[in-house]
């Protein structure tokens, strides 16, 4: 099962939240940040970015704001701007790593154009929100910056439950059962003992079989096989 994990999909499917995640001691983190704009909300839990109740993207290390322009929601990560539709569908992700002097500090709107601030400098998006360019004459005034606000408690609870459902793959749990590590370090030693025992039992069993076979062969070679001599 482990050898064919990818084909079976066990590395892409998860054990849901419940006693298994509790056994592993996994707890959902509190939200790092949350921003509201245009009647919707972006929240970061661990490294998972949520748009309202939809999981938008994983692997996001920071959430630095959200604004909306022409129906597209622009969500600022550390060095990229993720675009989402109002339904929480990922539209695009614009990687600004090579352009910015540092991580994105803020994101906002000015004159209908999305603006990000990094290292004290400003970068403005084009009309299609396809790319950004340095706004050398921008001084930061008049920009409607996004500000963090706490996410409602019921939303946080729902997101945390979803987060737990995406933490443990079936492959991980299977591998830990196979190695014994699901029972901790003692479990691993126990499985080592079982494996060695199987090897020893196989070899001694083979040895005993050979001994018996050789013993039967010697008795048959001396007479008529029933132990009597004439």
């Amino acid at each position: 099962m482990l050898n064919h994990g990818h084909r079976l999909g066990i590395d892409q499917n998860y054990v849901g939240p419940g006693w298994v995640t509790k056994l592993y001691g996994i707890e959902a983190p509190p939200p790092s940040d949350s921003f509201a704009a245009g009647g919707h909300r972006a929240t970061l839990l661990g490294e998972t970015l949520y748009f309202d109740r939809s999981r938008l993207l994983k692997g996001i290390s920071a959430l630095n704001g959200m604004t909306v322009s022409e129906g597209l929601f622009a969500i600022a990560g550390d060095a990229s701007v993720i675009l989402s539709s109002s339904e929480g569908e990922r539209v695009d992700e614009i990687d600004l790593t090579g352009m910015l002097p540092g991580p994105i500090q803020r994101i906002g709107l000015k004159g209908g154009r999305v603006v990000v601030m990094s290292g004290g400098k400003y970068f403005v998006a084009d009309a299609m929100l396809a790319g950004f360019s340095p706004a050398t004459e921008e001084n930061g005034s008049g920009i409607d910056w996004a500000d963090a606000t706490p996410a409602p408690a019921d939303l946080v609870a729902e997101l945390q439950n979803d987060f737990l459902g995406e933490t443990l793959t079936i492959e991980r749990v299977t591998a830990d059962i196979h190695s014994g590590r699901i029972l901790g370090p003692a479990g691993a030693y126990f499985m080592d003992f079982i494996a060695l025992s199987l090897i020893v039992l196989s070899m001694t069993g083979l040895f005993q079989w050979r001994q018996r076979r050789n013993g039967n062969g010697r008795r048959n070679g001396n007479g008529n096989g029933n132990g009597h001599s004439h």
Partner: protein
Amino acid sequence: MISTPSIWASATRSTDMKRWLLILLSSSTLAAAVALAGDGGQAGRYMEVDDYLGSAFPGGVPNVQVLWVSGELREDIEQVLGHRFGKLRTRYWYNGESSVWVLEEIGKELPITIGVTIRDGSITNVKVLEFRESRGWEVKYPFFTDQFRDASLDNKHRLDRDIDGITGATLSVSAVTRIARVALILHENITATS
């Protein structure tokens, strides 16, 4: 009296056993050395997108454009990928002759960022821009990516050639191959409409 053949047989068995033990010890040591050597941690960002664009368009990088992926185009792409195309649109650069696509596809668990340059319906360059996993990074080397040079699609959206794989990098090889096909489909779409 001990028979000479018995001594000879015993000595021969002893020599054989020593030879086998030596072979076993050497093999074990070699296997351990290979296992402990690891893969050297070759994941990383190999090239910035801007640098890749600069190399693809030496006469000047055109403005970025946007292609919304929907309808039949999305169906074709998702058939190649074997899963949903994770975005509603993709950006590209096109100067009327060559197009450049920067796309991502998951190898085993994490996305690989790949740049593809296409001209006249054939690939002129494939470059792995960023590799995030601990295994399979060998696909970044020209010995692998050069296989895609001049590749094009048949009428079933398959490449017109077989791509040799890399042992231990099967999933990465598959990801890069799928992206090459997707880029060709996207190029076909923008050149047909323009």
